[in-house]
């Protein structure tokens, strides 16, 4: 257990915890775009920056990304100093130039009083903010089907050679985690399309409703040793099936009683 001061209040935290979770747990709102509990923090978006100092630093301060900074005994944290707000404002301003059409960015920027970017809108931009959430979640999944490609300002997230990613299993984790909803995908009939690759969706044997991609199920079956038949029926029909079975038990019990 360590003690830190956040905005003047002394707070207890567990060793190894990152500042961001402690700050948020205490109801202080800090924006972040690249943070997600399911993935390791990397500090790409820089929005969660806070100012830190210590008693013995004698007034010296520094700015750190709270998602990556572990709590330390005696740390003094300020989450909304003018400098910190200036950083967040500038970053949101830059992001707004990068993806002016993103509602998520627009909303966040508005909260910091920015309605129009001060900069030139990036030509041919999309709503990708390079947070790497998609590549990181794909790596956690054990596939790494997509990655950051190139370097510098031209960097983009793409599958190898910009072609259908051979390691993709159509799980949609990348599209689901994307904070700006920029990864396109469609489910049509029993076909899912993502990263230009088509995947067969499992159709429920009972009702025909589509569930997850067959390759995703195969991966789970192999990796996590789950019986194949679990995936053949949709959750609705599985519940009905359970109800039917329970009904049979009830009926049998009543028969016995009679």
């Amino acid at each position, binding site marked *: 257990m360590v003690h830190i001061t956040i905005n003047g209040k002394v707070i207890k935290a567990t060793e190894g915890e990152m500042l961001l979770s402690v700050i948020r747990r205490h109801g202080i709102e800090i924006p972040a775009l690249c943070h997600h509990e399911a993935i390791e923090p*990397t*500090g*790409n*978006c*820089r929005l969660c*920056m806070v100012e830190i100092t210590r008693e013995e630093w004698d007034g010296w301060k520094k*700015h*750190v*990304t709270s998602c*990556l*900074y*572990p709590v330390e005994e005696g740390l003094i944290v300020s989450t909304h100093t003018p*400098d910190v707000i*200036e*950083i967040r404002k*500038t*970053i949101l301003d*830059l*992001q707004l*130039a*990068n993806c002016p059409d993103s509602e998520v960015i627009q909303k966040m920027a508005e909260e910091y009083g920015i309605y129009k970017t*001060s*900069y*030139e809108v*990036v030509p041919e931009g999309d709503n990708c*903010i*390079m947070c*790497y959430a998609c590549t990181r979640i794909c790596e956690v999944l054990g596939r790494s089907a997509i990655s*950051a490609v*190139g*370097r*510098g*300002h*031209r*960097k983009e997230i793409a599958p190898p050679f910009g072609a259908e990613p051979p390691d993709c299993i159509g799980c949609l984790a990348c599209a689901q985690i994307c904070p700006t909803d920029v990864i396109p995908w469609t489910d049509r009939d029993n076909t899912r399309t993502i990263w230009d690759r088509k995947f067969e969706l499992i159709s429920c044997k009972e009702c025909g409703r589509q569930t997850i991609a067959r390759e995703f199920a195969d991966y789970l079956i192999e990796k996590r040793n789950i019986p194949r038949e679990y995936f053949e029926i949709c959750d609705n029909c599985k519940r009905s099936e359970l109800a039917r079975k329970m009904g049979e038990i009830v009926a049998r019990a009543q028969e016995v009683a009679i």
Partner: protein
Amino acid sequence: MRIDSVDKLNHWREKCLKKRAAQKRKVLVCLGPGCLASGSDEILGELKKILSEKKIKGVSVESIKKTGCHGLCARGPLVVIEPEGIFYSRVKKSNVAEIVETTLEKGELVEKLLYKDPSDEQTIVDYKKIPFYARQQRISLRNVGQIDPDDIDDYIASGGYSALARALNGMKPQEVIDEISRSGLRGRGGGGFPTGRKWATCAGIDSDIRYVLCNGDEGDPGAFMDRCIMEGDPHSVLEGMIICAYAVGSREGYIYVREEYPLAVVNLQKAIDAAHERGLLGENIMGSGFTYDARISRGGGAFVCGESSALMKSVAGEIGEPRAKYIRSVVRGLHDKPTVLNNVETFATVPVIINKGGDWFASIGTETSTGTKAFSLAGKVCNTGLIEVPMGISLREIIYDIGGGIPEGREFKAVQTGGPSGGCLPADKLNLPVDFDTLTEAGSMMGSGGMIVMDNRTCMVDVARYFLNFLVSESCGKCVPCREGLYQLHGLCVKICEGKAVEESLALMERLSKVIQTASLCGLGQSGPNPFVSTVSYFRDEYLAHIRDEKCPAGICRDLITYTINDKCTGCLACIEVCPVDAITGEKKIKHVLDQEKCTQCGSCYAVCKFEAVDIE
């Protein structure tokens, strides 16, 4: 021959020295990057050919020594004849036979190849008396340009590996660290972190594995000191690394060499192999029981890999994206193990400190920046080349006394130090002493040691644009302030160069710079705005001239200038030949005509005109 004790090393050195003394004269041919670019490989070939055919007493093919950079690249190709130190400059292939006949056979001088001091036209024979060399003090560069980098015995004969012998026999690891700490040596890669403290931290961490890495990713454009050391004296780097490994308790490490330096890779590999063969690297070094091995890791051409965490990722086979270093790489470095990373020049300095003592080193330079520092002097300065000077020397001494001032009598405008992380200092800063802290205070930084001199034909806005452009493509692209911030800063800078900016842009750029500096993840972004920040603070008028008057005072920014041909034109056709867009027409001996519609203001005509017939407005 395996050297398995200190005695054996001493015996071997005696033997090497005797062999050396058998040659009456040595002919040193510089194969440094500068001389190579002037064709010194052809001189070497010619010399070998002539000496293998001729019989001269006391001189043979064995007398030829190909060396690394000798220093005064501007006068290359250089041939130096020892022991007299006869300095022949701008040697052509056709001069070689004359040098052999006159100097090697008859012992006379080839007057026309000797150095003439531009100030008084005096001829200077011995290079050590040329002001360029006389003002220097060489420690890290002690052997560069003097020894054959491919010959480990030449290094040993010059006292090489004696510091390692001293450390391994009779010094405890802690004593080595203490000696380095006492020397006050600070990292020569740019950061200036105290080397002794870094080693002590690494040694103090409980770990089964520790790494010692050498940063040979000299990415700053305009710097080539490390290249010259790796190519010209690779064993000094190795010796420094082994001493460090002994001090911190490391058994393996890497030398990370940038992609653009293929010769450095070749020479370092030869050095590693030779040191292995001599028993100076690998298992049981010099019979002491200590083991350390170093391998080369080649970079892939990414400036950001000079940053420690990116470099370590690159060594581990990943893309060089830095990580946030709230835990420093000396604690958690390569493969998450404690790692010492020092640059080439730092390691090359270490053996001298061990031999001569930390106090000796600390007596050179200033109190907080001890010792000497190597610089590469380039740009608009007469004596471009490689130098090493005591810390605390003034910029003026470097540029005027050693560098010989600005060519063509032009006016000094600025000196750029520290590469893309540094800044440009104007004329009124010329008297500043060169040390880590003073340069940082002045808004630039020491950096790895690139020093580029600029004259009044250099546009400072263009220089800022150049560095920002460099950084936009070299940013790893991971964090927003660096990737998007520098991109926008560059865009705004381009607008100024095009005369399309408004005055408010400067304030926006300054605000943005501040955020990029504080919010970026690694050093590349944090120092990225420096070239803009320093130029706008020292050369604001030049920025305003671009914005308000839409003029580029230096005549560089293409959108703000026009070229015209005046009456001095003799009709020589040179500009017509060179114009990439065929905007110039005319006939021989008749004044040429420039079509403004077609002209792209590239300035090629201006560059080739020998009659000052092209004007810039």
